[in-house]
């Protein structure tokens, strides 16, 4: 087991390196650069030249890449290019030492600042939405599988199809309109915009839980209901398949009580498809969802995935994709470990 984990983690290194190389050169291959224009105006070439010199974009691309990897300090020696902190001498330290570089769009901010600031909120939203999705979706799926072709099944399927079909783009403004503007139950926006539930992942003691959840409830609901529908459909299909397996028939033949058959033997196995989708879904959700963040005015990471590409903000593009990849490979590892636990036939060490 431990050897399996170690082998997998070592295997991540070439994957991450490949992603960095690919993204680095692809981002620079898109037409246009970060400093061509402000608004509708083109900048004079002389000004672009100054900006490119400041951020080393005038270097050959392979040199930019080495400096991105190992940092300017190692690459060209202690040249002060980016005054960030008065206390520490200012270099770019390179991604290998955890410095994701400066943002071109938000002058004076680094990619580490941006991700450190936006990731916690996106992660809170993503985790809560997945939990809500599981809490609603898995039981709904089980019920409709066990009561197949009854009104319970039909209504659960109907709701699930509805949940999958209504995009959050529609759901979110609808929630705001009903529960915020008309009923006044929940605040419309600005979860995470104001202290104290902002920067720290772990919330400070003596903190206002009511306020926190009143902000969180609508975004989590808008995101979680769509997930619950997906989970319900998967769970139903998978459980229906599992209860037709031979070993279930065997269990019944032994004279086990039906609830025991389902609970002990069928459920665990039928969770495998759900766990499989949770892996990539987890990575995608906790790194932010653009639409929900946009509509509820959340200061999350999702918009930076999109905006950084529009702005040709290369370091932010790389930083967000790198964080996403890291989370993705680790959550896939967890999924593989979960397989071993859910299905005794899967041996990880083999």
């Amino acid at each position, binding site marked *: 087991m431990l050897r399996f984990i170690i082998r997998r983690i070592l295997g991540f290194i070439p994957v991450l390196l490949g992603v960095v190389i690919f993204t680095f050169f692809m981002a620079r291959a*898109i*037409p*246009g650069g970060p400093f*061509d*224009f*402000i608004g*509708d*105006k*083109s*900048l*004079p070439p*002389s*000004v672009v*030249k*100054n900006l490119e*010199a*400041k951020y080393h974009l005038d270097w050959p691309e392979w040199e930019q890449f080495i400096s991105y990897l190992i940092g300017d300090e190692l690459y060209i020696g202690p040249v002060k290019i980016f*005054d*960030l902190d*008065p206390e520490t001498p*200012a270099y770019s330290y390179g991604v290998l030492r955890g410095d994701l570089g400066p943002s071109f*769009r*938000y*002058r*004076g*901010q680094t990619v580490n*600042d941006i*991700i*450190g*600031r936006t*990731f*916690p909120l996106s*992660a809170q939203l993503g*985790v809560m939405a997945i939990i809500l999705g599981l809490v609603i979706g898995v039981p709904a799926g089980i019920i409709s599988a066990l009561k197949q072709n009854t009104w319970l099944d039909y209504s659960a399927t109907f709701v699930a199809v509805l949940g999958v079909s209504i995009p959050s783009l529609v759901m979110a403004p609808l929630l*705001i309109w009903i529960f*915020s*503007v008309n009923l*006044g139950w929940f*605040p419309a*926006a*600005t979860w*995470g*915009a*104001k202290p*104290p539930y*902002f*920067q*720290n*992942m772990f919330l*400070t003691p003596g903190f206002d839980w009511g306020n926190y959840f009143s902000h969180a409830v609508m975004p989590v609901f808008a995101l979680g209901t769509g997930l619950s529908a997906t989970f319900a459909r998967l769970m139903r299909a998978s459980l229906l398949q599992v209860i037709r397996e031979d070993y279930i028939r065997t269990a019944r033949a032994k004279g086990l009580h039906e609830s025991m058959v389902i609970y002990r033997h069928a459920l665990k196995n039928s969770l495998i498809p759900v766990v499989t989708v949770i892996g990539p879904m987890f990575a995608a959700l*906790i790194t932010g969802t653009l639409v929900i963040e*946009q*509509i*509820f*005015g959340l*200061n999350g990471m999702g918009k930076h995935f999109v905006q950084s590409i*529009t702005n040709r903000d290369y370091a932010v593009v790389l930083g967000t994709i790198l964080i996403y990849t890291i989370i993705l490979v680790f959550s896939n590892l*967890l999924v593989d470990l*979960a397989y071993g*636990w859910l299905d005794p036939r899967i041996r990880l060490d083999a």
Partner: protein
Amino acid sequence: MFSKKTLLLVVVIAMLAAVAAQCGAAPTPETVTVVQTVVVTKEVQGETVTVVETVEKEVVVTKEVEVMAPGKFDNKVTLHWNLGTEPPTLDPALATDTTSVDLDRNLFVGLTDFDPVTGDVSPMLATDWDVSEDGTVYTFHLRTDIPWVHYDPKTGETVQVTDADGNPRFVNAFDVEYGAKRTINPDTASDYAYVTYIIKNAQEVNTGEDADGNPTELTLDDVGVKALDESTVQFTLENPAGYFPAIAGMWVLRPQPQWAIDAYGQRWIEAGLIDTNGPYVLDEWIHGGNMRLVKNPLWINADDVQIEVIDMVMIEEASTAFALYENNELDTTGVPLPEMDRVKADPQLSKELRIAPVPCTYYYGFVNTKVPFDDVRVRRAFSAAIDRQGLIDNVLKGGQIPATSFAPPGIFGAPEPGTVGQGYDPELAKASLQEFLDEKGMTLDEFNSTYDIVLGHNTSEGHAKIAAAIQQMWKDNLGVDVRVENQEWKVYLQTIKKTTPIEDEFHIFRLGWCADYPDENNWVYEVFNSEAGSNRVRRNCADPNCEETTGPSKFDELTAAAGKEQDPQKRIEMYKEAEDILAREEAAYAPIYHYTSVVVTKPWLTRNYPPLGGADFYNWKIDADAQMAAMGK
């Protein structure tokens, strides 16, 4: 059965959180003591020599903004405002966008200001200024009673900044000189440095090259800005420029606090570090989340500033901001297009509705070297066939102003819309195209099959709607077929560059232009002059790829001369003629509309709508009792 997995999830989250906390420059509210090198600038009396000395001292720096004590701002007159986006910077030398520039207006004073009603240049830090005979030397006389202040977000105290000797600092001419030179310094890499190129040697120093492209010998000391004494600053220009007082009021030339910038580097604009001199100070800036300004009690006109606290959120989605407005959580906001009809029908909201000017113009550029748009009759036909008012009434619905020339009202020298240039004239359009067809011996069908005319715009729902409407107008009024193509923004901007090979260009492209400073020079000259402007429409070109021009045209000469002219009345006349030539005689482009913004404002807020846009919160007033009552407090 979920317990193990849930546990696993929690562990993973905890690990990620720890990583994020490390990643995010450890936002712990700790006070640390560090040794700093502070560069102090002293002025020796009677001389303009500055002595720079370096001292080591112990300073206590707190990086994290304190969690707001409840009630700190209770019972203060508070404006709730939506910035709409995270401001990319507050640094006056680096700001480029309207959000940052608006905030800088409230934090830093300029040499000059713009009248909130007329948009004319008015005195601010400079009480008056003289111009030399030849119009190349501007001497600004400064008031010396505006204090530099530092605000401590923890205590809420605003104190005047002192120099190394403990003397209070007032904004002086040396701060102006420093600010200008910092913007021009190529190491600062200021986007807007190019507007300072009118200052002597600024271009050469900023680009590092002389006029022939050789490395320059000049340094920042050779730039034509000099503080003669504390209250006098002199700008020497390359050429006479009647519009220079407007440039002098721009954010990039505002006085900047050298001591703070030297001490904190690029972080000097953060709350708790920044030193300012305007009507407001920065209390809090949670990047991407919210920002708070509070009134500067030491501001010279503090008694006239009624709003004490400005709470700002950064909601990008217009419909969400509008929901906040309906919940009384914002005091004013823009109206999203889908809500427009409801707002107009609602008895209360319609009273709160107001159309505010925005100094921008939407236009379609013709590529003047691309067949058949190299013929003025075709260009004129396409421009005259656009029903601007119809477009505004049926598609835009925001009370925009139909444009017949380039610069919008409020810009110095801009003609009144509709008086000069080219507007909607379907008869003229038809006749003009017919004349072209007759000369070429073509039928309309042949025209359509010969030229595959393409209109380009950047990908956006709004631009697509406008393009579809205008495409239909061309079909109805002229009978021509036009294909519409869209491209991603940055790809699009590459396509419509003047240097793009002509075969890759569209025939017609859409673009907008907004004022940097309120003068026609920023418009007709900088955009369309074939010698010095960006001239994306390729007017006056000798070859399709516009490598050579055909020599200065009347328009080029007029716009160049108008910039150098000192007499305001003559300048207005010259620009009027130039605008007419550009839009009507040459029909180099099709002006479409001048922007507006549709805003709703709560009855308790009295605000202005300056012709140049922007938000000068210090001029606004709030009826706090009515506001509190509405919010149920």
